[in-house]
């Protein structure tokens, strides 16, 4: 999968690149609207991560122009301009998703996966975790073909951990993933701990949940 990162902040673009590279994406960086136009005219990308506040123009203009030129890439708008108009404007122009900076990188990855599933119809075979199967499309957890009843938030936590398997997810990253769309009501990791406890209880009745690890002081990991 190829990604064009349109971002004028060097550090930011670099860290994005490093992260996506680890997840086997091939990245190209454009630092200006001009560069972005040139790249888009040249190469077909699978993803465009588009920052709106570019030094030489508005990212929305780049997007509008690219869409006129039959852009096929999935576009995620990344911006600190958390204005509602930006968001609406971007989505109207055909962006697939919108993330207000700063989001966490695992969150970006989760969104990219969601778009991949939606857009490219890549029905991932069920992700397995231990004795369980995760159907991300239908948001279900199956054990020997039987559905395990989980709450919405519990499923969110579990699928996030499985998506980023073998990586430690901090409580903060999990909290942001679950509550990200909400006004910040103060960070409280207790809820994450409670969800993990419930997950272990519900899944543990059916099979071994050793793979759902607590990493002391850091957070949780799905070791698969």
């Amino acid at each position: 999968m190829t990604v064009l990162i349109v971002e004028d902040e060097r550090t930011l673009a670099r860290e994005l690149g490093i992260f996506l590279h680890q997840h086997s994406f091939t990245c190209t960086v454009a630092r200006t609207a001009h560069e972005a136009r040139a790249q888009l005219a040249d190469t077909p990308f699978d993803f465009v991560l588009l920052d709106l506040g570019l030094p030489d123009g508005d990212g929305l203009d780049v997007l509008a122009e690219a869409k006129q030129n039959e852009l096929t890439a999935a576009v995620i708008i990344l911006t600190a301009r958390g204005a509602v108009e930006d968001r609406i404007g971007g989505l109207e122009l055909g962006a697939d998703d919108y993330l207000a900076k700063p989001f966490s990188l695992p969150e970006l990855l989760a969104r990219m996966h969601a778009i991949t599933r939606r857009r490219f119809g890549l029905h991932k075979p069920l992700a397995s975790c231990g004795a369980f199967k995760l159907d991300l499309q239908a948001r279900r957890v199956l054990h020997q073909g039987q559905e395990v009843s989980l709450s919405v938030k519990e499923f969110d936590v579990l699928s996030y951990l499985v998506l980023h398997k073998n990586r430690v997810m901090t409580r903060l990253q999990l909290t942001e993933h679950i509550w990200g769309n909400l006004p910040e009501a103060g960070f409280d990791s207790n809820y994450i701990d409670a969800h993990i406890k419930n997950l272990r209880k519900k899944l543990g009745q059916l099979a071994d949940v050793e793979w759902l690890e607590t990493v002391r002081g850091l957070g949780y990991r799905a070791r698969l």
Partner: protein
Amino acid sequence: MKLSTKFSLFNALSRVAILLLLVGVLPPVMSRLALVATDSRLAQKKEKVLRLIRRNGISTFIEGDQSSYGSYNLLKEEFISLEEIPPGPRIDVIEDSKRAVEDEIVEYRVLSYSFAQGAKYYLLEIGRSTGSIDETERNFRTYALYMLLVAVALTTAADLVFFRYLLEPFYTIIRQRLKNGHHPAAFNFAPIATGTDDFRYLDESLREMMTTIQASFSKERKFIADASHELLTPLAALQYRFDNMLSDESLSDENLLRVVESQRTVHRLRTIIKSLLMISKIENDQFPRTESVSLAQLAAEVSEEVQDRLSVLNLTLTQEIEPDFVVAGSNRGLLFTLLFNLVTNAIKYNREGGQIFLLGRPAAAAGSYVLEIRDTGRGISKEQLPRLFHRFDKGAGTDPDSYGLGLSIVRTIADLHGIRIEVNSIEGLGTSFLLTFPAAGTV
């Protein structure tokens, strides 16, 4: 007192003063005038009589051995007498004198004139009773007074109407420019129609002031946009770096813990910046208020959103919003935030197995509505209550993870929507937030 009233009053008073002056001055003037008029009439009559005598001889009046002639008109208002007098100095005077006429004394204005006719001298006296002069004068005075009174009343009424018309633009300026407190973003710069230069000047000056205000507001808006970009971008860079470091296998556990701590610090910074920007944006009117929001529906959404938090603490949330209330001209997202912040507080400061109530009821004032958020938590101390909505003011007993901004966001959103907030709390028993929503259309 209104300007128009003052003006009209002043005018009326000045007219009354002139009137009184006239009434004071008139009698002597009038009587003087009456006297002059009388005297000239008497003189005319004298001329007439003398012409008659010259033409027809004295015998027309005095016949044979008579030595005098006298004649009164019926009401004794006038008399003429002619008598022969011994030669002497010439008499030609007009003066007041009393005469006895048929047993009554009457005051007359008398013209006495001596002349020679043939070899004899005569004295002609023509009199007019002063009573009749006075009456003329009195009538004249009464009429004049009435006329003046009517004139004063009419002109005062005319003044009032005219001033009111004249000052209409003034009140329009106050109404449109100053009273209907539009947000600077929604200023109306259309000039107010007036033919009065002073008002035009006032209106222009006010419009200049509005332009200045509007400029400073858009400057602030721009600052908010810039600040959010300039502050959040480096934070994003930091956050990605920490995200990447976490997956670095070579990092020692100790350093990993440091990274997690740093990540939390970045998160904290970010939350504070986002909250402050949100408050500024609300105060800057950057959220459209065009939606009608049902409180029952909103409460249901909020409680669904916090369901998992409730279950963690084993809390029950009861919602009784009957009858429902629709908040017109509001921003759904902001109202959600307001209620969400209050409910999460009610959760955070509750006790294991406690309760939360969302209770809605019509308020005492017609059309307005009260929504109560009550919890059975630890309560708020008396000292803390007045400082509850202050930014960054975290009282004792506040959650250490709190940023002290949740309630100031609540307050800002409430102010924007004209919602009154009242807090009652008993330490150890719980807290109740009362939101009073104004009747539709009164914001």
